[in-house]
């Protein structure tokens, strides 16, 4: 166990929280947009999810690190978040799958941590005031000054920082011979694993043009999850617009929002955001309720958009969780059917994508 040293978290609105630093100790301060997640298991998947680029993640679950870490659960080959905030770090871990402990994992990946704070007070504050920038580190004066100057991620192209180079992942199912181009805006490993069950996956940089995508002769195009504000990635939206009607498209999370924008929809910020593994969503096609993994602050507004149908809604607040184009073979899902972490209830959506590709 690392030696604990006192640390202070300061939010942009001046709210302060005392705790102990762990993980990679920040030289001056870890700074980012402070968000929370309510999953009760799966901290490693969350920490390694590229969608959290630029953010500091607060876990509402109080005991973190209990089962250690294992490379098999990484959602990316490196971490992209700016820090994590927890109530208590386990100094030991116990699970047959573990290959190491969380603290060493964070040190290795350069992620700072703050433990021991009243995470419930912080969560209620973020719920009531909205996610906001903040900073934590060892020196109160430095942290206060950094926090006061911290800016939101609005308008910043974080996708450019997480997208990868063109690489091919072979189909894991000998029966599945489809070719899928996945536009990588920060794609999670679990999504790649699901897609590879449907065919060979060509993961391409977010900046690839529609013509270059089509030159790969895909049976379908997948639009991935990703960090930050879709307003900053207009170039991907443009690509999607050029692909519509020419190839079947499936978008998840940020991919869903980009598809919506390509079809003419706008997005708006939710009052509370959705951040957990327990949100009920109704599939309007089957009328079934599924428990879903969610992580988004923005929502697509289909008002006035022609040729679209709502397919999924969130039962907590009635907001849009999925839609399809009635003019083109394309659909989007706001939450995370791949899980990682989270329930498996929605994995049928990958089959829907397969069917869509086969039908076109």
């Amino acid at each position: 166990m690392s030696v604990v040293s006192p640390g202070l978290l300061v939010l942009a609105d001046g709210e302060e929280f005392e705790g102990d630093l762990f993980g990679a100790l920040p030289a001056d301060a870890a700074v980012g947009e402070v968000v929370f997640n309510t999953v009760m298991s799966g901290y490693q998947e969350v920490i390694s999810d590229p969608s959290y680029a630029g953010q500091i993640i607060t876990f509402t679950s109080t005991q973190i690190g209990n089962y250690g870490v294992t490379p098999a659960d990484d959602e990316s080959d490196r971490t992209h978040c700016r820090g994590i905030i927890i109530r208590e770090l386990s100094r030991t871990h116990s699970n047959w799958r573990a290959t190491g402990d969380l603290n060493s994992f964070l040190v290795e990946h350069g992620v700072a941590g703050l433990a021991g704070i009243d995470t419930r007070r912080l969560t209620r504050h973020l719920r009531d005031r909205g996610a906001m920038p903040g900073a934590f580190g060892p020196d109160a004066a430095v942290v206060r000054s950094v926090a006061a100057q911290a800016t939101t991620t609005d308008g910043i192209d974080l996708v450019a920082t997480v997208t990868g180079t063109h690489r091919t992942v072979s189909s894991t199912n000998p029966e599945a011979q489809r070719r899928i181009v996945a536009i990588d805006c920060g794609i999670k490993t679990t999504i790649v694993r699901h897609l590879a069950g449907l065919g060979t996956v060509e993961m391409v940089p977010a900046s690839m043009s529609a013509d270059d995508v089509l030159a790969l002769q895909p049976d379908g195009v997948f639009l991935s999850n990703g960090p930050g504000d879709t307003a900053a990635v207009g170039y991907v939206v443009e690509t999607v617009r050029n692909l519509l009607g020419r190839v079947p498209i499936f978008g998840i999370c940020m991919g869903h929002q980009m598809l919506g924008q390509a079809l003419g929809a706008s997005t708006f910020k939710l009052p509370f955001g959705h951040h957990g593994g327990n949100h009920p969503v109704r599939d309007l096609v089957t009328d079934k309720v599924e428990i879903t993994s969610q992580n988004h602050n923005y929502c697509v507004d289909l008002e006035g958009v022609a040729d679209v149908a709502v397919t999924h809604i969130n039962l907590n607040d009635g907001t849009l969780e999925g839609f399809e184009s009635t003019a083109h073979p394309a659909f989007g899902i706001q939450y995370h059917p791949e899980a990682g972490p989270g329930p498996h209830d929605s994995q049928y959506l990958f089959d829907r994508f397969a069917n869509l590709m086969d039908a076109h």
Partner: protein
Amino acid sequence: MPKRTDISSILIIGSGPIVIGQACEFDYSGTQACRVLKDEGYRVVLANSNPATIMTDPDFADATYIEPLTADVLERIIERERPDALLPTLGGQTALNLSMELAESGVLAKYGVEMIGANAEAIATAEDRERFKVAMIEIGLDVPPSGTAHNMVEARAIIERIGLPVVIRPAYILGGKGTGIASDSEEFERMAAIGLDASPISEILVESSIAGWKEFELEVMRDHADNCVIICSIENVDPMGVHTGDSITVAPIQTLTDVEYQIMRDAAFACIRRVGVETGGSNVQFAVEPGTGRMVVIEMNPRVSRSSALASKATGFPIAKIAARLAVGYTLDEIPNDITAIRSATGEIVRSTPASFEPTIDYVVVKIPRWAFEKFSGTTGILGTQMQSVGEAMAIGRTFTEALQKALRSLEHGRSGLNADRAEITWDQMPDAAVLVECGRATPDRIFAVESALRRGLGMEAVYDSSRIDPWFLDQMLRISEARLDLAGRTMESMDRRSWRDVKRLGFGDSQLGYLWGENELAVRAARLAAGVEVTYKTVDTCSAEFEAETPYHYGTYEDTTEVGSSSRDKVIILGSGPNRIGQGIEFDYCCVHACFSLAEAGFETIMVNCNPETVSTDYDTSDRLYFEPLTLEGVLNVIDAEQHSAAQGGGRLLGVIVSLGGQTPLKLAGDIPIDLVLGTSAESIDLAEDRDRWNALCDQL
């Protein structure tokens, strides 16, 4: 789909007298069901032989029969009342078995009574262990190797095939009656005979023993549209080999990765679907081999159980209430989650989230059973696959260490936490070898031996080898040991705000600290408060604060801010009766609940303090505000302080504390509560009646 209109009257069977393995949790579930079904406009017919229950109060059902719970009597009730439906899943094993009897004898068919919730086929699949295993294998789930026997010859043949040790599990039994582990052939002969005798159909399952594996439980709910959710995940601190009702358990699960947890969740859904429980709650138990992660299904209860009561209180999700609504046709997404409901001034729900979700919690819950071996001569005090506890206490803390120590003092068995009290000397005087042996014996006191062994430095490995308690839990206990050694080496005066907060966050009670420092508990309290470290109350809200919740269901912990609200009404604190024990059972909960109802009617704000998860009093809607806290001096003084604080800030006045309705538990505290706050009989008069010497003197004088 809305509720069913083709049925208008429903028969609910209670669980009868309190027996080991079946206690007031079924009063809790039955009461909830009666209330809900009446609210929905159904005529409720209730049969129960136990008059010490809330549910048998005249108000809760339209017709109440306090009659012996036998198939004959029930048939006569059915003949007279002609209910359209029978809800068999809320009255424990008693109601389930009686319902099966009524189905098999043709009584239900004869009078056209439909079983709702779970049908006879589903109950048989879950309860008949051989059928259950076949069903699980059929859906691709792993189970321990086993065979079914109806006599000794068949039983011996199974041993030839799978070898020893084995667990013997009789079919259709309650609380693990007649079950046991046999390690040699002599034991096997004896236990198999007992098992065959215990099963009403003379059937036992002989199963390869997986004692020492990790044990988990999932509480599942399903509606008739096949929507399934997990309400609560539970991990047993005691490994396989001890009945889950006799195990120390923790919610949520602590040592599974999400990958493993989701596989278990899928398996629980597959299980409830295959068994065919159409609507309502079920409990599915799993074992996991620590070194390989191999997961097997152990069993499933197709009904509300003691674990459901625990899961309800641990998460705020009212399983019995929702199960009753599901049984009459609602789906999960049609039922609002009471806890996140925001109501208008007139009480109407303005906004809420639906019950079709999975609670997520930002705290840790620990349940510890309470036994009464001292009352039964001839018992060994060794725990096994047969349930022996008479009650239980639950505690909530932000961390495992805090919840564990709170739960231990909630038991009212003379312990203040995980040792650091006078009783620890029993263990500390034992030689190292003996204490390690004690770590391996599943007794009610094993956990204290484990702490003593860890504290004297015998090592995690040695303690694990002996106890098979997961290293994560052992390390948590070691942290308590280390802090305690550190505390013993310092003085109360040397404690600064940070150190006070650290030890309170590890769950140490003021009385433990007083023991370590040779100080009076109240002196410790005074010093702590002077250092600015006072308890804060957080809220049980089913969603880890993701949504607003106004539900006044609180637990104490040591954080930055407190969430207690208050109305302008004058308020009264009612102290509950703690865990069930012999001589203090459900009747005191009955008294406390009625005090709540009457005071509320008279316009007072009611505040309940209790730590027994099986009770009606710890339902979040029984009182205006519930503190799920140990009934110790510290616990009660903290609540009084919090309520006086909110009174000082403009809330209603605190009129006082009712100590006379919860049995001996609150009476013992009466003397230390400020005298002007004790409502009703004074502490002095209580003492005069309770203290034998003073009582005798009084009698002589009179």
